[in-house]
């Protein structure tokens, strides 16, 4: 169990192609790191070992994302964080996959809908990177998720779609998320259309939802419970919702007013 073992494991890792094989190799590497007391960086850990440890975790992270194991990926990211926080005098940033891994992590948070986590991570990046004079948005790997988030929040779904489709993706790992994101934005668009349009022709819905054929549109419409009549889609929820709103509102409103007034009376009594 020494550094040399670790290097040979890493060599092997590069040549393996199947996921189970790689994971066994990775766990072996992690055990070696544990024996060398380098699973988390200590002040006494030598630089060569730090570099090796970082490489192990980085390859683990990229592997797990390639095989869509998001839980494992998150774990690797957390393990990498202390390494990335080391000053460059102890651990040089060159040859690191740092921005790639961080960008992937941001994208993961985005697809999970964890906007709070996304912005928390971004804020940290902004402050730490900003001091070097390099803008975070200008980075190839980091800029991508940031742009996607901005478009998603604005509602420019077509731009998101284009960014995913037109091979603008910075690296192959990023493509993994495209599928998840597509489903996310399709659902978003569907819920928007339900309220925004009185009715839609099937032919143009195909473009709207980025679906391939009209058959797909029909099945998608059925899955969301939309009505299809004379080649147009109608949204039954819309009228239903409006009616329920009016009725429920009235009741709720009076109840709220009564509750509030009672509350004021009680408070007044304690004051006077």
């Amino acid at each position: 169990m020494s550094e040399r073992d670790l290097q040979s494991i890493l060599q092997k890792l590069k040549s393996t192609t199947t996921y189970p094989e790689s994971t066994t190799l990775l766990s072996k590497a992690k055990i070696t790191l544990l024996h060398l007391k380098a699973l988390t960086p200590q002040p006494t850990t030598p630089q060569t070992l730090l570099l090796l440890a970082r490489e192990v975790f980085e390859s683990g992270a990229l592997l797990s994302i390639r095989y869509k194991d998001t839980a494992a990926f998150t774990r690797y990211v957390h393990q990498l964080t202390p390494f990335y926080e080391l000053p460059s005098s102890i651990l040089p940033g060159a040859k690191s996959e740092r921005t790639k891994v961080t960008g992937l992590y941001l994208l993961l948070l985005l697809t999970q809908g964890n906007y709070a986590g996304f912005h928390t991570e971004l804020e940290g990046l902004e402050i730490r990177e900003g001091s070097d004079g390099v803008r975070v948005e200008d980075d190839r790997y980091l800029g991508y998720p940031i742009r996607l988030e901005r478009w998603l929040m604005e509602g420019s779904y077509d731009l998101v779609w284009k960014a995913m489709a037109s091979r603008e993706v910075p690296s192959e790992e990023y493509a993994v998320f495209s599928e998840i994101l597509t489903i996310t934005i399709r659902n978003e668009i569907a819920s928007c259309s339900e309220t925004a349009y009185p009715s839609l022709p099937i032919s143009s819905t195909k473009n709207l939802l980025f679906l391939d054929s009209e058959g797909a549109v029909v099945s998608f419409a059925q899955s969301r419970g939309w009505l299809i009549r004379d080649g147009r889609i109608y949204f039954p929820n819309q009228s239903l919702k409006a009616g329920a709103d009016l009725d429920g509102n009235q009741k709720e409103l009076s109840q709220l007013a009564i509750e509030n007034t009672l509350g004021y009376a009680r408070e007044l009594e304690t004051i006077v």
Partner: protein
Amino acid sequence: MPSKTPHTNGNEPVENGINGTKDVEMKDDAPNPLKGGKGKKLKEGEEEMTVVVPPSKGSKLSAPPQKDTDGDVAMDGEAAGEDDGAVKVDPVTQAISGTWNCCSSAVCSILSANIRSLLADIKSNFPLLERAVTLFDARFTLRALRSISSIRKRLTPDILAQVITDTYPSNSPAARSLLVALDRENATFAKPSSTEMEIDSESKATKNGKKEQKEIIPEVDIFLGILTQIYYLDNKITQKGVVFSAHLAERIHSLNRRTLDSLSARVYFYYSMFAEQMHPLPPSPASPVVSLRPALLSALRTAVLRKDVDTQSTVIVLLLRNYLSTSHITQADLLVTHTKFPDNASNNQVARYLYYLGRIRAIQLRYTEAQQQLTAATRKAPSSPSAAGFSQSATKLKLVVELLMGDIPERATFRVASMERALEPYLQLVQAVRVGLLGEFESTIKQHSETFRRDGTYTLILRLRQNVIKTGIRMMSLSYSRISLRDICIRLKLESEESAEYIVAKAIRDGVIEASLDRERGFMKSKEVGDVYATREPGEAFHERIRACLGLHDESVKAMRFPMNQHRLELKNAQEAREREREMAKEIQDGDLDEDDLGGEYEGM
């Protein structure tokens, strides 16, 4: 007393020269301490007599202390008024000093009087600290701490050293370590004999001096330690300051005295200030603030276990500041969820805590909470000019959060004299958002990006882009009953008509506008705007306001302070009143037979 002053003047020509430069600053507060200092010298002896003696009898509830607390209560009202922490003068001493005023000003030259008054000022805090220990009342300690801000400007190592040599016997280890820290170990330890002589020659001060020499309470040690920290901080001797503060913190930890609580809070505060100023500066993860965290966390643990509210609140705030300075937001959030900020923490700490909490929440997109916390923080911020920086940055953050929530801040916020200039870039930002002009918004960001980055609001402001778009759409939906998507696209300078369609659809879904889209003909049709007063909106706004008023009332009731033992007085009064009533009843009984029943009733009560 005045006749003695020339003697001491002669002893301190060196300090005169040093302090001469600072003469101008002192003009405003010079007369006050002068009087107070003079008067206090006299008063000290008396206070010692009345206050220190009772505990030796063994009972704290005897008459003299009670009288004393009454006096303090009256003063506390005064103290709350002066936020800037000007030197406070006992009402009693002020009365005494009035008589000395004319004589002393005639005798002393102003410069030496300043040094003397500063010495007296510093020393006048010692009896306060002692009283805090004997009466176990933290308010006296706080009062001593409050005087620091006035002492601070005039602090020099020589004066501090003189105070130390005056108060400690020359063989005290605490004094030696303090003097070493001040680099004055040789210069002043030559003096002790002379200072002692001086004390001997002053009949009234002797008792005082001897008493103190018998036993110097650790509170005085720490107080002088804090003054030393301040001296380091003001003169930017950070390296030494960190080492010294670490020692001081360790010492406090080993002492474990409840009366040290508010002092230790101060010590930790300056400790972390030193760490922040050391290179590399905070945003870098290698900054010394990171290595300070274990110390602060253990201090927090100890403070919680000892129910030390002052240190607890201060250290929580320091930790939050520490985490946020290196943008470890997750850790800061975890700290907030795992600790409970003490309810009865001092107002300033609460304000700081709320500010940091608001910042965390804003980053996490929890704008409503952030807005509430930041509003509370700006309201709780001290109004004195020295705290203008805090209210400015809290207001800046609040403005951005309000914008993010879709509100437009009031114009009056930007007109406050102390904020007008600092908020200038934000005013332009608000104007751009309000009108919904994307181009103007982007140019504002570009123009002021440095300022925004410095204020730490840049990332938040970048999120505003969608709000600008939404506002733009809302403006258009209000002005046109029907508008083509193409026009929207041109007005908002969007990339394509398709984008415009999706954006408008999202705006409709999010309830920003009341409209519908027509895909085939490519336009947006606005719905008729209903009567706002028929909805629940006015009721909600009304409710919100009433709740704020009620909350204010509750808080002010909680903030009221009741003097200790006051109820005894009331009881006494009540008893007297009852007696008087009884007498009256008796009189009625004796004088008027008709009132018999009434009298009986009174007796029965």
